[in-house]
């Protein structure tokens, strides 16, 4: 595997310990009808209906009817919270297999034929964990792949760590890998493991006999666990027609559970971390668990920002209004910036954690992580070409150059600068001393280029149709002339 470049681990306080806390049955479930990839537009239940655990509440008609499944039995309430489905008066008993025990049939025995296995994964909500490594979008259940990239390197602060996810479940994990090998009809499974992972040796022993499974060690630096980086580092990116799947630790475990014990994929092991969390841990929750109930008595301070996901790519949620969505891997809570500090730019910065070397804290590495808040940490300025964004970029593009071309409306130049390689990790925005929103610029640039390509395609199609029409008219005219002659 080629060496990865760039990347950075920020010293953010509140890293979740690998202790896993079981959450009690909540008072209700608040199920979001939209997440990053899915829009559960087709609601299958009615207001006031009593449903049992495991019922399909809604599906996404645009994506292979991916289901939204009830983790607990309860009474359906629609329209109580915008864009959510509520389940009230929940049953106490969780659906079977929620505990995810390690006692299951070997692969093949329970899963039946290929098509059966795929149907089961779709109906139990485990299929959406499989994404296309290039587009990061769920793959079609009919599709197959030559390679599967399994990333156990989750380094964004803070999402569930592989160490917590795999504690006591390595056997299930390996069975999940075997399922993936079968699903791809003999495809190669590439497992990326961080160089500081505690389970690496044991895992290597368990998969030693599988020639189709390869273990790759990755430096534990954000965002080196990103499937697209691993894909390129393995040299699999050169042939764009070769399909490659990507899946993360939780997905492999969900697939194993669905195929071995037939349990629906409603359980989530999430991280709860950040400087505003009193005791950062991992939590065992279910999809739709109300976020305010998760955070109750677990925060220090009132004026906080709750982020679904990590601080680089997550989005803020309003705790009272939402529950865990199906794709959530963690909740990060930050204090909102509330006060001004005098001459802070001129302070030595003993406890500041910075990418560059301008703070005294650099002299004593390994100090306590910083209690960063939501401060922009400076004023918006013009780019001074310091080069930090170029330095930190894991895909080797030049964010500052792209930023300048984008704002000069030179889209062709932006395209030439290979903005398509961006994996939207957000490090360029993080390190920029001028506080330029480079991540937004990269996203805007990619969107503009996509739109331009689509417009161009449409134009070409239109031109082609017109040309055909013209030719047809010409032929008709010729035929007419011939007829008159």
């Amino acid at each position, binding site marked *: 595997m080629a060496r990865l470049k760039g990347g950075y681990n*920020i010293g953010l306080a509140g890293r979740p310990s690998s202790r896993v806390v079981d959450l009690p049955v909540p008072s209700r479930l608040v199920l979001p009808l939209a997440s990053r990839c899915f829009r559960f537009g087709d609601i299958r239940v009615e207001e006031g209906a009593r449903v049992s655990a495991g019922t399909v509440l809604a599906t996404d008609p645009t994506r292979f009817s991916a289901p939204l499944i009830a983790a607990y039995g309860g009474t359906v309430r629609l329209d109580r919270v915008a864009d959510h489905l509520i389940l009230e008066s929940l049953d106490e008993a969780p659906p079977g297999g929620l505990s995810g025990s390690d006692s299951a049939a070997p692969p093949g025995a329970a899963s039946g034929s290929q098509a059966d296995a795929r149907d089961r994964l779709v109906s139990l909500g485990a299929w959406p964990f499989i994404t296309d490594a290039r587009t990061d979008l769920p793959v079609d259940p009919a599709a197959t792949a030559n390679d599967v990239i399994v990333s156990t390197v989750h380094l964004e602060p803070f999402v569930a760590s592989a160490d917590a996810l795999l504690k006591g479940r390595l056997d299930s994990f390996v069975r999940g890998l075997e399922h993936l090998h079968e699903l791809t009809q003999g495809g190669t499974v590439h497992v990326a493991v961080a160089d500081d992972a505690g389970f690496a040796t044991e895992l290597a022993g368990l998969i030693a006999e599988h020639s189709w499974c390869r273990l790759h060690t990755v430096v534990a630096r954000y965002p080196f666990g990103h499937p697209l980086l691993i894909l390129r580092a393995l040299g699999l990116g*050169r042939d764009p027609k070769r399909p490659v799947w990507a899946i993360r630790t939780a997905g492999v475990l969900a697939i194993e559970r669905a195929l071995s014990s037939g349990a629906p994929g409603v359980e989530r092991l999430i991280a709860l971390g950040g400087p505003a969390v009193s005791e950062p841990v991992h939590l065992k929750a279910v999809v739709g668990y109300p976020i305010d109930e998760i955070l109750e008595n677990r925060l220090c301070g009132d004026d906080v*920002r709750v982020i679904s996901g990590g*601080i*680089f*790519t*997550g*989005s*803020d949620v309003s705790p009272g209004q939402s529950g865990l969505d199906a794709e959530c891997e963690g909740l990060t809570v*930050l204090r*909102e*910036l509330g006060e*001004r*500090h*005098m*001459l*802070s*730019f*001129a302070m030595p*910065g003993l406890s*500041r*954690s*910075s*990418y*560059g070397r*301008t*703070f005294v804290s*650099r002299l004593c590495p390994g100090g306590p992580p910083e209690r*960063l*808040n*939501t*401060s*922009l*940490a*400076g*004023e918006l*300025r*013009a*780019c*001074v*070409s310091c*080069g930090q964004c*170029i330095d930190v970029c894991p895909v*080797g593009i*030049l964010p*500052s*150059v792209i930023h300048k071309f984008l704002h000069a409306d030179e889209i062709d130049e932006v395209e*030439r*600068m290979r903005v398509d*390689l961006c994996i939207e990790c*957000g*490090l360029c*925005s*993080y*390190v*920029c*001393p*001028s*506080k330029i929103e480079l*991540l937004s610029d990269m996203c805007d640039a990619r969107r503009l280029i996509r739109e331009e390509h689509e417009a161009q395609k449409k134009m070409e199609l239109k031109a082609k149709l017109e040309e055909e029409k013209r030719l047809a008219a010409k032929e008709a005219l010729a035929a007419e002339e011939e007829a008159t002659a």
Partner: protein
Amino acid sequence: MKLILTLLDKTRPLFQEGGRFAALKPIYDAADAFLFSPLTRTSRAPHVRDPLDVKRYMSTVIIAIAPCLLAAIHFFGLRVLAMVLVSYAAGGAVEVLLAMFKKEEINEGLLVTGMLFPLILPPGLPLWMVALGSAFGVLVGKELFGGTGRNLFNPALIGRVFLALSYPRAMSAGWIEPGQGLVGRALEYATDAVTMATPLAAAKSGTWAALPKLFFGNVTGSVGETSALAVLIGGAFLLIIGIANWRTVAAMLGTFVIVTAGIYSGDPHAIIWHLLSGGLLFGAFFMATDPVSSPIMNSAKWVYGAIIGIATALIRNFTGYVEGVMFAILLGNIFAPVLDELFVTAHVRRLREEG
């Protein structure tokens, strides 16, 4: 601290639109932002940001300059401080007027330009010329290009070139004889000090200054450049904290040594003498490394530094000028966009091959 914050909050309405001093808003904002960190929160991912900002970025250069400034006061008197103040005042006035006119914020770039500019002038230059040069450098060298971050040339060097072409006699006469002893001229204003030829000028007529004198700075020359020791201390600081790019410095000094060795057929004394004399070290650490007027790519910085190093050696030895750093760096600035185009294109092509 609370008191100042309350005062700022209380007087804020006076400077807002419709307030009595609305026209002075840029000054108020600059003072407000200088004294206290802003209350701006992140509005999108990433939700936290690195604590380094442009103000701190620029301030590190001021810290790095401190040894040179202290050495300058020691050798050339308190007059140096007056030059720095005048430079800041004149450059600042232009910056403030333009900010008021454009209704924009005042930029931190002035912190560096205002300090660097007097340090590359003869210590005996009349103060009004310092003011004129500083104002010209900020206006033409920076603001006309669109402000900090958009200038093609180093603004301080633009100011110096303007003075060198407009007042050649004054610019070649103000070489004050450095103070001697432990105190030097640190306690005098040094208006009536004797002037003399710079080591590089004297060398043309065959008088070579002693190496220790060049190293410690006990010779005449531009305000901040004479003490190689002070420049090296500040320069090392800038390289260690990563604000100045070491590739530019290494390429510039490396090629200068090679070309000088060629000219003096490898005479080590001549090489070290040229390395320590004039503005070479000051230019290498503080002027050529200006990120805005340098090329962006690290690979391009090697070529950029080499162009400046070679040009300096050639100008010093084969033209009518005794000193070549200023023109060499400006020449490098001219090359920077072309180097960017070449090296960025090559870099992007490599990305394509990687897939």
